[in-house]
């Protein structure tokens, strides 16, 4: 059996999205897509729960839904640190086999230096859970007028990277080149090593932002993530396929940070 092309999709979701129809956002469809694109396993969040006041019920549904598929689909529950019971929820996540959890500070109105987010980051590091943040779910220019949350600012990522210890692993999904650079070069080398990025929103050729970032901050700082079912899983793959040869290893491959983030 050959190894999958991508060991991990760090940024997958299931469930419906409140602001537009998303085709087939169910785990069976995700598994078919992963088979088609040669993706080994995925960290899977509950898309609808991003917009819930209290995500705990959606997390319970997520655990139940993914339990039979745990070999490839790992639950990534959303845990709200400004609600009572954060540590209990983190315990449930570990019991359910989660390797990462997600937080949505912009949807919850938590600013960049909110102490609850710092507490969550430290608690995740202590339990060996990656903390996954999403910059945006849709392009700003197409959002529903009720979707008023701002994009995740770089300041939030910098604050968390600075607050956490070396055991902290932050995974940031859907950032563009500007945010990645603003964050990375605003951190010490030790802090930089705590942050991983997917490249779902990084431009490929002709501007070649992804190639630039691989050269400047290193491909090891990046993980494969798709934002499925919101975005085409083909997009990050096409971006890799169109990289110039000069950023590839002699074997023709790209060294991503997926193994280190798990």
């Amino acid at each position, binding site marked *: 059996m050959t190894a999958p*092309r*991508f*060991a*991990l999709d760090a940024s997958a979701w299931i469930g419906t999205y409140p602001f*537009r*129809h*998303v*085709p087939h956002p169910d785990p069976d469809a995700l598994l078919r897509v992963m088979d*088609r694109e040669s993706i080994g396993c995925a960290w899977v969040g509950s898309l609808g729960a991003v917009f819930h006041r209290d995500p705990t019920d959606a997390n319970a549904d997520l655990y139940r839904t993914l339990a039979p598929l745990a070999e490839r689909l790992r639950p990534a529950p959303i845990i709200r640190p400004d609600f009572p019971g954060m540590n209990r929820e983190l315990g449930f996540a570990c019991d359910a086999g989660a390797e990462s959890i997600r937080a949505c500070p912009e949807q919850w109105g938590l600013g960049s230096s909110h102490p609850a987010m710092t507490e969550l980051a430290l608690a995740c590091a202590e339990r060996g859970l990656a903390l996954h943040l999403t910059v945006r779910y*849709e*392009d700003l*220019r*197409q959002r529903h007028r009720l979707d008023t949350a701002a994009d995740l600012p770089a300041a939030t990522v910098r604050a968390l990277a600075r607050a956490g210890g070396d055991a902290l692993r932050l995974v940031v999904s859907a950032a563009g080149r500007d945010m990645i650079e603003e964050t990375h070069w605003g951190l010490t080398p030790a802090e930089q090593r705590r942050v991983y990025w997917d490249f779902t*929103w990084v*431009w*490929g*050729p*002709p*501007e*070649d932002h*992804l190639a630039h970032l691989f050269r400047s901050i290193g491909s090891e700082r990046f993980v*494969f993530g798709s934002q*499925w*079912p*919101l*975005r*085409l899983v*083909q*997009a990050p*793959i*096409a*971006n*890799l*396929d*169109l*990289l*110039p*040869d000069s950023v*590839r290893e002699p*074997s*023709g*491959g*790209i*060294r*991503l*940070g*997926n*193994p280190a983030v798990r």
Partner: protein
Amino acid sequence: MTAKARGTTPKTSGDTTNGPLVDAHAHFLHAACGRSDWEAVNAARFRAGDRMGVTVHVASVLGSYGHTSPTYFPSPADVTAGNDAMRAICAAEPKRVRMLVTVNPNHTAHALAEIAKGAASGAVGIKLLASRRADDPLLDPICEAASAQRFPILHHIWQHRTREWPNQEISDGADLARLAVRHPTVTFILAHIGGGGDYQHTFHAIREVPNIVPDFSGSGVDRGMMDNAIRALGASRLLFGTDLTMCTGLAKLRALETTGLCTPADIEAMRWRNAARVFGAARLGLAEAI
């Protein structure tokens, strides 16, 4: 263990074995655009195009790209300089590049002169930016010139205009539809359904206006976008294109095979046959492929 993402030649729709591929929405930079890396960006477009299997880049230069006048409101001097630069690129790459003449309709006489000059030098269409709303009467003489030259017009579009945005006089599908109804002999290419805004509004707005054919360029790669476009408009009204992000163009091209809505002939139509119909197969150098 090291995760290896093999950067091999694309194996699906972007493969060169799948016949011609026309990028109906491309741009090139030039020396007067204020970017020192302009040659590298142009080279990257060719590099990625070769890997994707692009046969012809149908391209325009947008004045000075903001360096000496605004991108979407280019001065006549910048329009001329940009078109001249575009002609030079065509001359250097006669097989794989075709030119759209960029014009600013606020300067009617200049715009018409640029179109005539373009027609005489092998251009295949006209590029309109966002210098004037799409249904403005100032666009009528441009459309009449397009009709006379059998040129399609690629019009920059914001998908669903709900407010004004700075640095452009934005138009949406409904605005372009009003212009297209006034000029039924002209084909209008609605730019980049993935280029920002609510593309679902666009499909409703242009569904009944058959002389509008969108290109699916733009950085947006929403799942469902291509499905909605095909259901609303049919494969015969969609053009492959990339604009500023070739990776997202390739992703959407590959995704066509997974929608369950396209026959191989449909995909061929979107890859190049529709473009050959809109621009003219001979003008694209694809007459033998027909």
